[in-house]
Structure formats: structure tokens, C-alpha cells
């Protein structure tokens, strides 16, 4: 059995990089250890090159249909790798100054991203499960990396417990699905569900249980509880990773399983996910209103964003290909936009926090004078998260509403209305931060900030990206129009 190496080239590249990083960390001493960061970046770039090559080569089917590299998967891989690059850049100084765990951190990070890369390509429950755990387990550790920090260890514990609980629930569901369909291949499951099995209550319940596992990753209500505590407690680059990459991975898996495996019973899960979407965005936004810690605010905001992204799931219907494809595309576009702006926001938070330990929103007062670049960037990112014009955030919301409008249903309109109202509510707290940044004078003792070069580069690139995509969303939207699921083996 020949292995299609090209199909897994990005993953292989990351794996090799991860092992190299580990080895280098062991081999190097002192300041030289910091070379692992550029090393990891190089590996990431290589992986990106492979992914770009794959874009042209898609679709490919490998491992007897367990693994499919289609345009959908490649788009996600590029998203993950791009995020990885950004996170590596913003991590550099953050961890360099901590002096601990240098190599391990990068190794764990890369491992987690291997899992993410697998996610959108997986066409088998088992592979999905492994991919999910490969994302989770290193993340558990990374969250707790600030070992002497009470908050960090608490965050790790919470994250871990909820994570394994969700995993267990998902596994229980998977086992039941297997019991009904006799296969773990998504295609096979879909075929079985299209038949008689599609109406057995136990199976439908199991479908929900499987979805729970991903609901945890994307922090949808009521599986979201870990998110604020974890983000707040973990090292900021890790929080960024969780908020963006890990969440995107969850969505990749959810999209795959929902639209490939469970598509025949979409009429059952779509309303449920739609309701979850409404609950998620509303709760996220409402609770965000009361937050005083910027990271917690971003955490709740990202919960709300997940709610928005769940809306297209609520639109799905069995057999309605146009609707379903539009839904998938909307989620994908939103995720890309979300990645750009949210990584940016976390990057700024790191830039501010690294030196000063500031996280309360009030400590951002006068950021406009202390670091105009960070202040401007934060403003752009927050406005974009809210969906202001000329930022990519607007198009993200637009994409969701557009998906709703493809075939208007009452439920779709209800969800869209919630989206509309919620995006207004969201501006309340985004504006609060912006006001703090620009309208309030800086505290007397607050120093001017000198963000690291790599961080500045990331911030600038993301800010430009936010605005560029805000002006020309077609740069992303046009290519992703063709993203579809390729049929597996």
C-alpha cells in the first residue's frame, strides 16, 4: 500500500519540525535555546509551502478514504498554519523572557497544530478523535505551563476536566454511531443514516453526543464554561491559540462531521445547533458586558463569535446542497476573518501585558499615547470583531447573513435578527475598550510601551490584513467560493 506522501506533507513537515525542535531544545543551552522559535517558524513556512502546493493538487484521497485533502481541507490548513506562524511570532519574546520551558512549549504547540491539520481532512471517526485529542492534550499542558502561577494551574485543571469529559461524551456517541452503522468512515455513516438508521432515537441522540465533543472545542453554550477561566489563566499566546486555532479546528471537525457524516439527519441537528447558536452568541455578548479583564472580555467575545459561526449550521437541511455549501463557506470565511482579527487582538494584549502584567480594561487607559501602534491596532481589531465597515469583520457577518438569505426561512431570520441585535450589543463592550484606549488619560506611572519587533510585525500585518480584507474581501472570498467537500474513498 503506497502512501500518498504529498497529501500529508504539511503534517509531516510539522512533525519533523516538532521533533527537531525537541532535539534542538535538548541540545542547545542558554540563549541559544531561543533559536527553536525561528526553527519552528521555518518548519511552518515549509508546511505552508506544501499546503499551497496541495491547493493546486486537491482533491486527493489517502489512507483508504480516512483522509481526504480537498479544497476545504487545504483552506483550513492554510488558516491553521498562518495562525501558527502568527502565534510563534508573538510567543517569541513572551516565552523568551520567562526563560522556562522554551523547547517544550514549541514542541507542544507544533504537536497541537499537527492535530489541527488532520482535522479538516479526517473522514473517519477514529481519525477525528485522534486529531481532536492531539489538539487537546498538548493544549492541556500548555495552559498549565506557568507552573508557579495559581491561575495557570487552575486554568489547566478546568480545561482538562471539561476537555476529557467532553471527549468521553463524544466517544460514547461515536461508539453508538459505530454500533448502528458498523463503520467509522463518515461516508459509510452518511449512507447508513440516509437509510432506516436515520430515524432511531438512540442514533440521533448519539449524533448529538458526537457534536458535543466539538461543541467543547468551539466553546458553544453550554460547553463554554471552561473558556473564560482558561483563557484568563493561561499564558497569553496559548490563550490566543485556544481562542483561534483550537476553535477553528473544532469548527473544521464539526463542519466535516456535520456536513459529511450527519448530513442526512441535518433536519434534526440543525435546529438544535441553531438554538445553541442563539444561546451562545447572546450569552457570550451579555456576559462580556460585565467583564473588566480584557482577556476574559475577549474570551466571552470569542464565545459570542462562535455563536455567530454556528448560525450557518442552523440553516442546514438534508439534501439541500446549495444551502449547505453556502453555510460551509460562510463558516470558513468567518473563521478566516476571525483568526485575523482575534489573533491580532491577543497580540496587542500580549504587547501590553508582557511588560506590565496589565489586563484590566482600565489599565488600557491612555494606550493611545503610550503606544499609538498598539492602540490603533487594537482599535482596528476590536472594530473588526464588532463588524465595523472597512474591516474584515463586516464581511464575516455579511457572509453569515448571506448564507441565511440564500433560502430564507423563519428560523433563519430569527437567527439573523439575533445576530444583528447581538452585534450591536457587542459594540457596547468593544467601544468601552476603545474609549479607554483613546478617551481616558494614561495613569501617571504608566510607561511607554516598546513592543518587540516580531510582535509589531505581526500586529501590523494583521491590521493591514484586517483592513485589506475589509476593502477587498474578494481576496479570500473569491478563492474560497470553490471550497467543497470532496467525496472520500
Amino acid at each position, binding site marked *: 500500500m503506497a502512501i500518498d506522501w504529498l497529501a500529508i506533507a504539511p503534517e509531516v513537515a510539522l512533525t519533523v519540525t516538532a521533533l527537531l525542535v525537541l532535539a534542538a531544545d535538548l541540545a542547545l543551552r542558554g540563549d541559544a535555546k531561543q533559536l527553536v522559535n525561528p526553527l519552528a517558524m521555518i518548519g511552518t513556512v515549509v508546511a505552508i509551502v506544501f499546503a499551497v502546493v496541495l491547493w493546486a493538487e486537491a482533491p486527493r484521497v489517502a489512507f483508504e478514504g480516512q483522509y481526504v485533502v480537498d479544497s476545504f481541507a487545504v483552506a483550513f490548513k492554510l488558516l491553521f498554519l498562518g495562525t501558527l506562524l502568527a502565534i510563534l511570532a508573538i510567543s517569541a519574546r513572551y516565552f523568551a523572557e520567562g526563560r522556562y520551558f522554551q523547547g517544550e512549549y514549541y514542541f507542544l504547540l507544533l504537536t497541537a497544530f499537527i492535530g489541527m491539520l488532520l482535522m479538516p481532512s479526517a473522514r473517519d471517526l477514529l481519525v477525528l478523535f485522534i486529531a481532536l485529542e492531539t489538539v487537546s492534550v498538548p493544549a492541556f499542558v500548555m495552559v498549565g505551563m506557568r507552573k508557579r502561577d495559581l491561575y495557570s494551574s487552575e486554568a489547566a485543571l478546568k480545561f482538562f476536566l471539561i476537555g476529557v469529559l467532553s471527549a468521553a461524551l463524544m466517544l460514547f456517541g461515536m461508539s453508538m454511531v459505530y454500533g448502528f452503522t458498523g463503520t467509522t468512515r463518515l461516508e459509510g455513516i452518511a449512507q447508513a443514516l440516509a437509510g432506516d438508521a436515520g430515524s432511531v432515537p438512540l442514533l440521533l441522540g448519539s449524533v448529538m453526543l458526537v457534536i458535543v465533543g466539538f461543541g467543547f472545542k468551539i466553546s458553544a453554550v453550554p460547553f463554554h464554561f471552561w473558556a473564560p477561566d482558561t483563557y484568563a489563566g493561561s499564558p497569553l499566546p496559548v490563550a490566543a491559540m485556544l481562542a483561534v486555532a483550537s476553535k477553528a479546528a473544532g469548527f473544521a471537525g464539526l463542519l466535516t462531521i456535520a456536513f459529511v457524516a450527519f448530513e442526512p439527519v441535518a433536519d434534526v441537528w440543525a435546529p438544535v445547533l441553531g438554538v445553541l447558536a442563539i444561546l451562545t452568541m447572546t450569552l457570550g455578548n451579555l456576559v462580556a458586558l460585565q467583564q473588566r479583564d480584557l482577556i476574559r472580555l475577549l474570551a466571552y467575545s470569542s464565545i459570542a463569535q462562535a455563536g455567530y459561526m454556528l448560525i450557518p449550521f442552523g440553516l442546514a437541511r438534508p439534501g439541500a446542497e446549495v444551502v449547505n455549501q453556502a453555510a460551509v463557506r460562510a463558516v470558513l470565511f468567518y473563521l478566516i476573518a476571525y483568526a485575523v482579527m482575534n489573533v491580532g487582538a491577543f497580540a496587542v494584549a500580549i504587547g501590553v501585558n508582557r511588560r506590565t502584567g496589565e489586563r484590566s480594561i482600565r489599565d488600557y487607559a491612555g494606550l493611545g499615547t503610550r503606544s499609538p501602534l498598539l492602540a490603533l491596532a487594537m482599535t482596528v481589531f476590536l472594530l473588526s470583531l464588532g463588524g465595523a465597515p472597512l474591516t474584515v469583520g463586516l464581511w464575516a457577518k455579511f457572509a453569515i447573513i448571506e448564507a441565511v438569505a440564500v433560502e430564507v426561512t423563519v428560523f433563519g431570520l430569527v437567527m439573523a435578527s439575533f445576530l*444583528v441585535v447581538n452585534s450591536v450589543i457587542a459594540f457596547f463592550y468593544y467601544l468601552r475598550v476603545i474609549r479607554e484606549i483613546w478617551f481616558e488619560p494614561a495613569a501617571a506611572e504608566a510607561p511607554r510601551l516598546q513592543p518587540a519587533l516580531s510582535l509589531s510585525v505581526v500586529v501590523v500585518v494583521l491590521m493591514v490584513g484586517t483592513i485589506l480584507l475589509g476593502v477587498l474581501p474578494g481576496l479570500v472570498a473569491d478563492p474560497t467560493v470553490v471550497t467543497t467537500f470532496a467525496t472520500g474513498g
Partner: protein
Amino acid sequence: MDPNTAGWALVVALFLPLVGGGALALMPAALDQQIRRAAVLITGVSFALVIAITATFDFGRSGELQFVTDVPWIAAIDARFFLAIDGISLPLFFLTYLLTLLCAIYSLKVLPPPGKPKAFLALMLMLQTGMAGTFVAFDLILFFIFWELVLVPMFFMIGIWGGPRRDYASVKFFLYTLFGSVFMLVAFLAIYFQSGAQTWSIPELSALAPFGSTTFQTWAFLGIFLGFAIKVPMWPFHTWLPDAHTEAPTVGSVLLAGVLLKMGTYGFIRIALPILPEGATRFAPIIGVLAVIGIIYGSLCCLAQTDIKRLIAFSSVGHMGFVMLGIAAMNATGIQAALFGNLAHGIITGMLFFLAGSLHERYHTRDIATIGGGMLKLLPRYGVLLTYVAVASLGLPGLAGFWGEFTAMWAAISPGVGLADSYQGLYLALVVVAALGTVLTAGYFLWLLQRVNLGDPPERWSSGHLDDVMTIEWVSWAPLLVLILALGVYPRLVFGVQDAAVTNLVGFLGG
């Protein structure tokens, strides 16, 4: 420049301020005066370009789109980068550039605390592109982008350079307007899908109209209505306006009153009416009633004000009521009236805010009672200017304010598209009540003049030296003062330019 081919001119004029604002942001903050002069230069050059566009505009074909740029933009959603200008857009477009230039000139000397001219002017230039773009975008998506773009710089202008309650006002402004516009966006999408034409082009959609069921038209119009009505602002969506106007810095108030509010009415005329004629017809009586309530209500509120800026702000509610009454008439005259009223209000109220701002500079208070009268003695030139502009604002014939009001009432007496048959009595009542509103308007302005201008100045001002109108103020105000008279004496300046375009537009209304 050939109006048929020189689309670039419009694009350059539109984006020059934005690019200039960016360039301004890169200048070192220490170059205070140079920055201010650069802003004047940028706005001046773009205004010169607009003059060139106006000069080469083919007035014989003012009903057609000229200076067209129409290229694909976002293929995924069929959005196009579609800029053009016609008789309806031209006056507002012109006004935008004029006012911004004047604001830039004004800012050479006057800038409220905390200063920071770089940020302020960069925001203003960004605002300019947003405002101007709204008037020349002929693609719904592009329109929406420009529309929303305006919010951000204005939010900062109010929030950083505003009055004591700036925090509250800025957020209220932002959220309230945003709230309306997201519904508008939803309605745009509904229109896009309902039309089935795979286009966001306003002319194409207008030509396709009416499409969709009555229910669709009603709901879609409601969505658009919310967006535009909040911006206008129509009663009862007006509550953001007094706060925003009052707290905004002078330049912000001028642009807010002078251009921003116009975007709402422009949107009604350009988008809501031609694309959703049936919905518009159903809503017209409601709009009319709300408009007239706004007229009376705004005037009554003005009577109760003690803050001069807030008074002017509330007067906008009333004046925009006349504009909306014109729109509610749904006929060519009404739209002419609305557009004229729009423009006139922009000039006059813009000027009033300039005056109020300068008074605040002098007296350091906006409280009418504290100013206490006697300005004609203390600052005779200000007194005369205030009288002049106030009288213009109250709709005196021969000055710009009259034509919008009178023509709106004249239009409303015989509303178009069959409204005359079903709502004759209602519209007559609307006209009568609106006309009564003019009395109230006269009332509060005269009272304002009496309390500010007339009588002997109170003791507290006799000691300090108050400067009368400065040169820089004369320079930045003179064009407005002239325009107020010119438009009043020669309304054809605007009516004539719009005529063909309005006739075209009314063609879409049917009926």
C-alpha cells in the same frame, strides 16, 4: 475632463482625503501648524478637483450617471466598485467637499482640547471620504461600506474632542446608528436575493423594481427605513442627535449636521424609493406623519433649551422633518424639495454650529442665560451673522431655508403614486401642521436672538475682552454665508441641476 470617460477624477477626488489622512498620520506630531496646513491643502486640492468635476459635468444630461467607474470588486457576492455622479449626487457631493475644506481652514486656528491636530484632521479626512463616498456609490454594498465608514471617525471626534458628556454621546451615536444600519444591511441582502439579478447596482435594481411580494416590499422597506430614519433622524429615532451634536466639537457638529444627516435622506431618495416603490408607497403616509410630528416636536424642544448648541441640534429634528415630508409626498416636487431642504439645512445648520462653536470659544459657555444677551453690542459682527443665519434657518423667503420647506409643503398637498386618492385629507392636515411648525420655528429662533443678541450685555462680560469675528472665521464662513443667499435668490442652482435626475427617479416610482 470628459464626464463620460473621466471616472478617475471621481475616484481620485474621493480617495484623496483618505490617502491624505493616512499621510497626515505619518507626519511627526510636533509639526503642529504644518499638519493643519497640510490638511487644508489636501481638502483644498480635493475640493478643486470637485470644482473641476462640477465644471465639466454635463448639466444637459444631469439625469444620467457621469464620471462612471464600474469594475468588479468582490466577485464572490457580485459586488462592484461602482462610482458615478448625477444631478442628485452632485450638490451633496459638492457640499461635502466644501464643508470639509472650510472645517480644515477653521481648524487652522481653532481646535478644542486636547488638541492633537494630527489625529483630529486625519479622522476628519477619513470622515470626508466616507461621507462623499455615500453620495457617489451606486452599488449597495459599496454604499453600505461608505455609510458605515462614517461612524468610526465621528465616534472618535465626539469621544476625544467632545464636551463633558462625550463618552455617553459618542457611544450612543455609534450604537444607535449602527443598530439601524445592520437592519439596513439585512434588507439589502433581501433585495439582492429577491431581485434574482445577481447585482447590487442601484440603477439596475431600480430598473427591475418593483419585484417581490407586497410583504417582501414592506419588510425590506422597514429594514431600510430603520437604517435611514435613524440617521436622518426622524422622530422618534432622534434621541441620539441632540447628545451627539451638543457634545461634538464644532467641526464635528458642522459635519454631522452638514453632511451626515443628509446621508439618511439621500439614502431614502436614492435607494429606498426607487428600489422598493411599493413599500415606499405603503410607508409614505407613516413617514409623513412622523415627519410632521418631528417638525412640531423638534420646535417645541427647541423652545425649552437653555443650551445654544442643543437648541440648534433640536432644530435639526424639525428641519429634517420638512425634508422627510417632501419624501413622503412621493412626487418629483417632493423629492426636489427634500434634496433642496437637505442641502440648505446642511449649509445653514452647519453655519449655525460654526457660530455656536465660536461663541463657545469666546464665552466659554453654551448656556444662553449665562451669555445673557447684548451680543449685538459686545460682538456686533457675530450678532449680525447670528441674526442672518437664524433668519435663514427659520425659513425666510429669499434665503436658502425657504425653498425646502415651502416646496415640501407644496409637494405634500398633492402626493404622488395614488396617495392623493386615499390620503388626501391626511396630507392636507400634514401640510397645515407643518406650516404651523414654521411659526414655532420662527418663535424659538426669535427668542434665541432676543436672549443672545438683544438687550444690554450683562456685567460679567464687560470686564473681559471678547474678540469679534476673526479673519480665519470670515474665510471659513464666507462661502456658506454667500451660499445661503445665493441659493435663496437663485434656487435654480440646485433645482435645475437635480431636475432631470429627479424626473428619472420618479419614473421608477410608477403610479
